[in-house]
């Protein structure tokens, strides 16, 4: 990943705050994950489907939509998830709420970040839920 790509993700450089009610910090969440990108995407899809979301994959982005049959169109929770590679062992997952209830969005973020952002342990192999992760590079 290019340093400027990372910098461009900064909330302070996101002028959309001028048009939004909520603080960017509330609408966008970022965390790191040591899982390979494919596993991250798979895990997100699996988790959100179990929570009742519909998933649409678009290039390196996942569009997550949770339709609440009881509420009107504009209350549906719509979230975009994107995975960026820092290096082969480290990825950044960014979640962005584009519409819907902030509390529901926060719940989703907590679930996904607790599932995906693991602490590195001493040996180079990590296991969670049956996925074994070899580390192909000398990870920090």
């Amino acid at each position: 990943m290019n340093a400027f790509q990372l910098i461009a993700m900064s909330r302070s450089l996101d002028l959309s705050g001028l048009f939004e009610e909520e603080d960017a910090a509330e609408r966008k969440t970022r965390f790191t994950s040591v899982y390979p990108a494919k596993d991250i995407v798979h895990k997100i899809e699996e988790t959100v489907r179990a929570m009742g979301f519909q998933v649409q994959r678009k290039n390196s982005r996942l569009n997550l939509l949770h339709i609440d049959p009881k509420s009107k169109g504009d209350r549906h929770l719509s979230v975009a998830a994107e995975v960026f590679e820092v290096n082969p062992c480290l990825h950044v997952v960014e979640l962005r709420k584009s519409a819907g209830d902030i509390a529901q969005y926060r719940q989703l973020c907590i679930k996904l970040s607790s599932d995906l952002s693991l602490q590195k342990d001493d040996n180079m192999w990590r296991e969670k839920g049956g996925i074994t992760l070899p580390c192909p590079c000398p990870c920090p």
Partner: protein
Amino acid sequence: MVQCLEEIGHVLDHLLPCLGIKSFMQPRRLRNPEKVANETVFSVSEVEALYELFKRISSTVIDDGLINKEEFQLALFKTNKKESLFADRVFDLFDTKHKNALGFEEFARALSVFHPNAPIDEKIDFSFELYDLKQQGFIERQEVKSMVVATLAESGMNLSDDVIENIIDKTFEEADTKHDGKIDKEEWKTLALRHPQLLKNMSLPYLRDITTSFPSFVFYSQVEDA
């Protein structure tokens, strides 16, 4: 009917000062939105909508028709307590008259660069000046590191110094074609054209829908858009 209201508006604007009633508030509508529309990518009705946003932001702390740094921060971050490397730099770039306060024209001209349809060269120039923290005409490695560290700190992401140095090394390897340890305007332009995602934060899709987000009421609109 519409014309009638406009004329009443004109009359009041002239009458109130004569009655000794000074308006401490900014004008309810722009005198000359066409001028701003001509200098930016916005249409006249978009300029009027932008003015509604401007009025709202510029009156949050002091109702003086200008956006000061505190009001700018409040609008962006919903808090005036946030110290930010970038917020200062963004404000400075908007503040072309260097008055520490933004008038509507400066506000509109700067936001014009962020319109999805604005020329990419404008976005490239603006972002270069943004990242050139010390305004030396080039982006130094140390400036890049400060910005990366600041970005990581705000979301609580922990990357080791080695990983950070590695990311910056790779970036300079690609960007610094003259191998002088700095990224100049030309090198930045080449990099940005090759990786358009670098300019992602230079476009605000909200600006496309601004007339629906900030309706300025019909009877203030002076011109019918074709």
